[in-house]
């Protein structure tokens, strides 16, 4: 039996190529409109894509390392809050998992947690989150609450060489655990509506989380009753050892960026964590530009690159649908649990993924079919977490 995997997509602005907004098929004046995002989400949903991630940042220039990110005028600017955008897309979609990006330095963990629980309620169990550690100088100026923080990767390129970045990863870990703990704070059967005793709530089944960490504390239970998935699907993108460790410790699913299929095995080795109940799901990222023919794809690519050269962490595939399917096949062989495609151009490459890549991947026997599981966790083969508080009760 061949190994079959689901496909995810990563949505951001006009696509992942910085010149994509200049293409004739782009919709550059609609990038923060309801219609644009509804169309993208429905395309992914109808194509059987398992989930869509949505990028976010708390500054105009995003996480760009360019010094002039806040002032340059030739790049896509303006975005929507990703958790809210995902909530908006939930009623517009049926099956698609919705995985917004959140940064963990500035927002209130309590608000993040209740927002994600609500996303899971409104999507009836299709909510997730991509956790991002750290902050930029402009983000800190926008908030004005914390003066110090990381200033990008240190010269060595290694997170562990910068105490501020290490602290940011510790804080991201605390925020992630707060999200999980608050999600557990109402047991599934806490609402009793008992007419005999007049109790709406069984207060024994709602638990104060009593978090007191290095970066913040939270006393009370969530305001949101437990959601369909119990906990949102927690994901993270990781390129090196500290983020790998973060993912292995805190995430359900990690995105990796192997330079090619041969590099996958080494990354999988680094991701093993001894104490997990459920293995970490690993999705490999590919940035794709798809045309009917290789020649056409190359011509578009050359035009884009001439206008604004792309710098990316992900492997880039420029070609026809069969080229992309072959790349996905090689990653499947290498042992990943899924592939996340980053469309170079939106909506064009998402349309091509839906119309060409997904059907051919299915024909090639490498695409996991949708067998109707109601929640995102279930579609990924992940169990629904039992509330940690309920477990304690059983053990007592």
């Amino acid at each position, binding site marked *: 039996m061949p190994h079959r995997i689901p496909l995810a997509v990563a949505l951001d602005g006009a696509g992942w190529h910085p010149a994509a907004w200049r293409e004739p098929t782009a919709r550059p004046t609609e990038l923060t409109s*309801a219609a644009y995002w509804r169309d993208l989400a429905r395309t992914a949903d109808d194509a059987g894509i398992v989930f869509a991630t949505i990028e976010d940042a708390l500054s105009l220039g995003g996480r760009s390392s360019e010094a002039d990110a806040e002032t340059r005028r030739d790049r896509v600017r*303006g975005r929507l809050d990703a958790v809210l955008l995902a909530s908006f897309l939930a009623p517009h979609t049926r099956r698609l998992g919705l995985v917004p990006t959140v940064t963990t330095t500035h*927002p209130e963990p309590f608000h993040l947690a209740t*927002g994600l629980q609500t996303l899971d309620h*409104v999507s009836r169990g299709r909510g997730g989150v991509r956790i991002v550690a750290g902050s930029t100088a402009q983000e800190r100026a926008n908030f004005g609450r914390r003066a110090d923080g990381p200033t990008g990767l240190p010269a060595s390129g290694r997170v562990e060489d910068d105490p501020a970045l290490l602290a940011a990863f510790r804080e991201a870990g605390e925020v992630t655990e707060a999200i999980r703990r608050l999600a557990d704070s109402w047991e599934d059967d806490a609402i009793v509506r008992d007419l005999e005793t007049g109790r709406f709530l069984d207060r024994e089944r709602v638990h104060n989380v009593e978090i007191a960490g290095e970066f913040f504390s939270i006393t009370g239970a969530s305001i949101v009753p437990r959601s369909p998935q119990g906990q949102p699907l927690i994901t993270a993108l990781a390129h090196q050892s500290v983020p790998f460790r973060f993912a292995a410790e805190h995430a359900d699913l990690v995105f990796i960026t192997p330079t090619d299929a041969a590099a996958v095995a080494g990354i999988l080795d680094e991701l093993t964590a001894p104490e997990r109940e459920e293995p970490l799901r690993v999705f490999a990222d590919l940035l794709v530009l798809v045309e009917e023919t290789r020649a056409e794809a190359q011509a578009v690519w050359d035009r884009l690159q001439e206008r604004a050269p792309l710098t990316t962490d992900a492997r880039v595939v420029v070609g026809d649908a069969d080229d992309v399917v072959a790349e996905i096949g090689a990653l499947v062989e290498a042992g990943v649990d899924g592939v996340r495609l980053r469309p170079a151009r939106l909506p064009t490459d998402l349309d091509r993924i839906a119309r060409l890549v997904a059907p051919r991947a299915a024909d090639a026997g490498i695409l996991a079919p949708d067998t109707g599981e109601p929640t995102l966790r279930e579609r990924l083969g992940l169990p629904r977490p039992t509330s940690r508080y309920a477990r304690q009760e059983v053990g007592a």
Partner: protein
Amino acid sequence: MSRRRIHLAAHFPGVNNTTVWTDPTAGSQIDFSSFEHFARTAERGFFDYLFLAEGLRLREHRGQLHDLDVAGRPNTLAILTALAAVTEHIGLVGTLNTTFNEPYELARQLGTLDLLSNGRAGWNAVTSSDAFHGANFRRGGYLDHADRYVRAAEFAALSKALWSSWRDDAIVADAETGAFLRDDAIARVRHESRLFDVDAVFDVPRSPQGRPVIVQAGDSPDGRDFATQHADVIFSLHTEFADAQQFYRDVKGRLAAHGRDEDSLKILPAATFVLGDTAAEARERSREIALAQVRPQTAITYLEQIWNRDFSGYDADGPLPDVEPDTGVETAQGFAGRHAAIRARVDQLRAQAAAEKLSIRELVIRLTAKHTFVGTPEHVASEIDRYVQERATDGFTVVGHVTPHGLDEFADRVVPLLQERGSYRRSYDEGATLHDLLGLPPVAQEAAAR
């Protein structure tokens, strides 16, 4: 002279004893289907906006979670944004705190809601400073009580500056030249004070209505000042006719000093309603609902909060306890506005109970379950119209008592009568923003911020 227009908001039933969960028709307070039904009903009734409160911490009573009333609700912003997907015209307004949020983030979240709803977002700005709620947030109970409105006013001013920092025509997206933004597309927003140190470049484009509508609910002098300076709508508690008229005159009279027009601030007090085919039937229903809203345990709990004593042995149908309140420690946390002046409050309650010969339960019904409008649909419609025509209000924030169907009969039976009276809309204008629905002046792009 033409008739004054009635403006109506619909409040999703909240987490206090107004909401009757024991009603056989009561549904989930958390499933999206309940919110969807409520929103569609309000839109079918041509309301200006629907309105959701905010939860920062579950209510407690004497150190334990309060378990008699509905508890548990969604994140306000996330549920409103989901509702934007299933509605077309109605405004979407939520309560959001200025103490446990930061302006950049809240402004971009409200800006997101405003863009995705095509200009239908609103923000009920509330203040808080207590350590009980603060315990769920990064900074704890950091804010001095006296600074609540200082922070709220600066927060609102800063948010307005952020919302107005993008030119309407900021995005040119010229594929030929490669210019995505025009040169002076976005103004930097600086705000330095005792409470803030912000040097921001906003990342959400301007919405069709310029910025979300701002609602204000506090009734203190500071609250009224905030409202006359920053708010577009006041959600007041002044529903008794003469009192409402006086409040209306007072607030509208303050606007000129801020260079504002009377129509630029709408006053929409909270109102409950009970309908019947006859006046007698409505009164009977009102009585039944009040008894469901104030069950014996509810009444005892209410007194326990004020006295800070265990009254579990008392009979709710009997007289008030003949013991003094424990004013040492406040434990009725999370019940806003019930902390102060315990003794004076107890004396006042005793006097009222004695004068009207009330049991504990009857007293609490008087205090918490008095319904604003009780009668036939004709009576309720004519009362609402009278309040508006005679300048006691600009309309009401209507609260049903059952989730999610409580508003249905209002939309079905009262709204058509308001329309017949010629003072309520018969349709929404295509593309109308919440500012438009409320008859508010357009938001100028403030030059100072640019």
